[in-house]
């Protein structure tokens, strides 16, 4: 099997699932196809990570399609999230009131979204990376407004408008980036082409290009102050879609931004790190404060996604090898934990039909397993040991404190403590204590669809394992990616 084969299979699997969803009228068949497709993609992403261990980068079509070490880690996170989200969605849809037509549409959009999402780290040509990123918005609009009521459409509209606005600003940045490249006489608009031309890129154009792309994609990643769309979109979107949006915002977009910053850092007088640091710290700090004052647990975890995107960008901007590795580690740890917490929150919603924090009390006394799982997942996302994020946040703090600007580490530590306290405060109030006055709806069946339980168990595996042990190929991938972002050619 040629080395590039897994790349094609990662695309082909959701494409086939899309075909099934388009043709089949049976929703269960479409759902099964989506799960199977994403599972195959995940297996192939695992193969990619393993291959990249030996070859550091795999090229399918030179300058167009291929994957580097960083990309392989990102695609692993995306495919794992895609698989578990499909599984959870299949279970949750069986309880959903929507008609068969709407559910069929759901699987079509879901597979289209996965196709665009998987394409981001697998494409090398920058204009196409931009296109894939934009398409993730357009394909997820109808997933966000899946409920079909006015509030859902309002959320979908805000989401589509703000993120497309971001994409339009980013396109100006991309075009400026191409201008910078063209002044060096090169027309190879791929990651490797940019790295090769980087020392000769004119800094004034490049700095403006990076800032425009950071703002544009920052709006898509809901970095503060461009997060206006996020509370609405997350509180209306189905839980598995929230999980996928989180992966898009905290894995795929930081991947693009960190790669670009790596290129900008190869030029003299680059301001890329300063801007990234500014946006990173504002997002991490702002989101930590938003977590305190939120009233819905879905939004709570949405804000925690912004906080993590902020932490990742900040660590990337600290610009040492260890900090960059820690940033990628954080992407991995958060990328596997976020689906788990959204699935756990999804089961809480299935059981209680409530979104507001104040309406949920004493979960543990009503559903022992549901409450305990939610508690554990919540602690995992807050960054408590012995889960994955604890280790990665520790690595981020250690590396930023050792960087030339140690105050970054101190500020980040403060933000992490605030968000940890805020998340655990809300969590304890929800899980412990006496249940609120139980109404008729909440009394209803306290059983979960089996597929939802399965999705939670599978999603929990890496969260627990990565808290203790990181497989060799992944360590190698993170290390190679960290070096590559620092400018050494693979």
């Amino acid at each position, binding site marked *: 099997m040629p080395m590039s084969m897994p790349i094609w299979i990662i695309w082909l699997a959701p494409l086939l699932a899309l075909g099934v969803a388009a043709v089949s009228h049976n929703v269960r068949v479409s759902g099964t196809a989506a799960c199977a497709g994403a599972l195959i993609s995940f297996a192939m992403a695992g193969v990619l990570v393993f291959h990249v261990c030996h070859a550091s980068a795999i090229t399918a079509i030179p300058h167009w399609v291929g994957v580097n070490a960083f990309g392989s880690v990102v695609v692993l996170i995306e495919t794992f999230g895609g698989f578990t989200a499909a599984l959870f969605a299949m279970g949750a849809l069986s309880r959903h009131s929507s008609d068969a037509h709407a559910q069929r549409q759901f699987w079509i959009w879901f597979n289209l979204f996965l196709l665009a999402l998987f394409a981001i780290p697998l494409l090398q040509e920058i204009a196409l990376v931009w296109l894939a990123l934009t398409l993730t918005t357009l394909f997820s609009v109808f997933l966000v407004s899946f409920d079909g009521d006015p509030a859902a459409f309002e959320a979908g509209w805000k989401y589509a*408008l703000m993120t497309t606005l971001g994409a339009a600003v980013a396109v100006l940045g991309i075009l400026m980036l191409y201008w910078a490249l063209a002044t060096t006489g090169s027309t190879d608009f791929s990651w490797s082409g940019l790295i090769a031309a980087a020392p000769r890129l004119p800094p004034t154009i490049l700095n403006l290009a990076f800032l425009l792309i950071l703002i544009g994609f920052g709006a898509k990643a809901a970095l503060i102050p461009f997060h206006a769309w996020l509370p609405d979109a997350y509180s209306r979107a189905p839980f598995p879609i929230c999980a996928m949006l989180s992966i898009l915002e905290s894995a795929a977009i930081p991947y693009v931004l960190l790669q670009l910053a790596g290129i900008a850092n190869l030029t003299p007088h680059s301001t890329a790190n300063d801007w990234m640091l500014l946006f990173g710290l504002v997002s991490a700090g702002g989101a930590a404060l938003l977590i305190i004052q939120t009233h819905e647990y879905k939004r709570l975890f949405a804000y925690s996604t912004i906080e993590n995107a902020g932490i990742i960008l900040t660590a990337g901007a600290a610009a040492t090898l260890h900090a960059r590795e820690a940033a990628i580690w954080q992407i991995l740890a958060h990328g596997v934990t976020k689906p788990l917490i959204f699935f756990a929150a999804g089961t809480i919603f299935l059981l209680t039909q409530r979104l507001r924090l104040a309406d949920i009390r004493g979960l543990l006394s009503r559903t022992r397993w549901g409450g305990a799982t939610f508690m554990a997942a919540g602690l995992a996302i807050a960054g408590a040991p012995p889960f994955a994020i604890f280790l990665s946040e520790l690595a981020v703090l250690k590396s930023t404190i050792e960087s030339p600007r140690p105050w970054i580490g101190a500020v980040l530590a403060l933000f992490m403590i605030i968000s940890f306290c805020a998340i655990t405060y809300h969590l304890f109030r929800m899980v412990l204590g006496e249940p609120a006055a139980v109404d008729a709806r909440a009394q209803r069946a306290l059983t979960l669809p089996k597929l939802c339980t399965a999705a939670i168990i599978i999603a929990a595996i890496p969260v627990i394992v990565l808290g203790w042990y990181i497989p060799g190929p992944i360590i190698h991938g993170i290390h190679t990616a960290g070096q590559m972002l620092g400018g050494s050619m693979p």
Partner: protein
Amino acid sequence: MISHPHHWLDQFIWLTSGLFLLCSFGLIAAAQVLGCLRVYVMQSALLTISVLLLAARYASTDLLAVAGIDIAAKIILIPWLLRRTARRAMIQRRELQLIISVPMSLLIALALTILAYYITAPLCHGQPQVIRAELPIGFAAVFIAIYTITIRREALPQMLGLLAIENGAFFASIVVAPTFPLIGEVAAAFDVLMVVLTLGVLSRRIHHISGSTEVGLLAELQED
């Protein structure tokens, strides 16, 4: 400073640039949905003319293809798609509301234009005349279009504002990167069509449910 020879086509390129900027102001002032669409199509036409002029100036076949894509996507397909997906909202003959009044908005747009010249000044330094003419205007068009989106309350004018940003971005870029790979142009045109299709369908559903496309009035989801 390097002196660049004038080309007889430059006069026309400056003229188109001026008219292009005027269209950005027009997008703010247009009082009806159909008017917004007409201004957008006019702006797209000016973008295409500008691409054609540059194609003649640089004898570039790539730019000819870009002009072809622009005509097909922005002047023919988009208006057609919009009329199809959002017919009812399109033909309503009522005044659109702005959050900030038109005269004030035009003043702000003027300030944004000056800002665009200020930001692009370091980039334009020592560049040929055409770049100094078109680059700031492209940026100004982007800024004004973003501003238009923030002051419009209704779905379709907001969407046309989005499309105008893309117009501005390409107006700025065709002159600095005339060799921009065609695939980029195709990707952008494809994206623009997808935006129109998705947002068009979305706005139709909003219209269907709430009887209006005044998305600015939907405020059910405020964080309290």
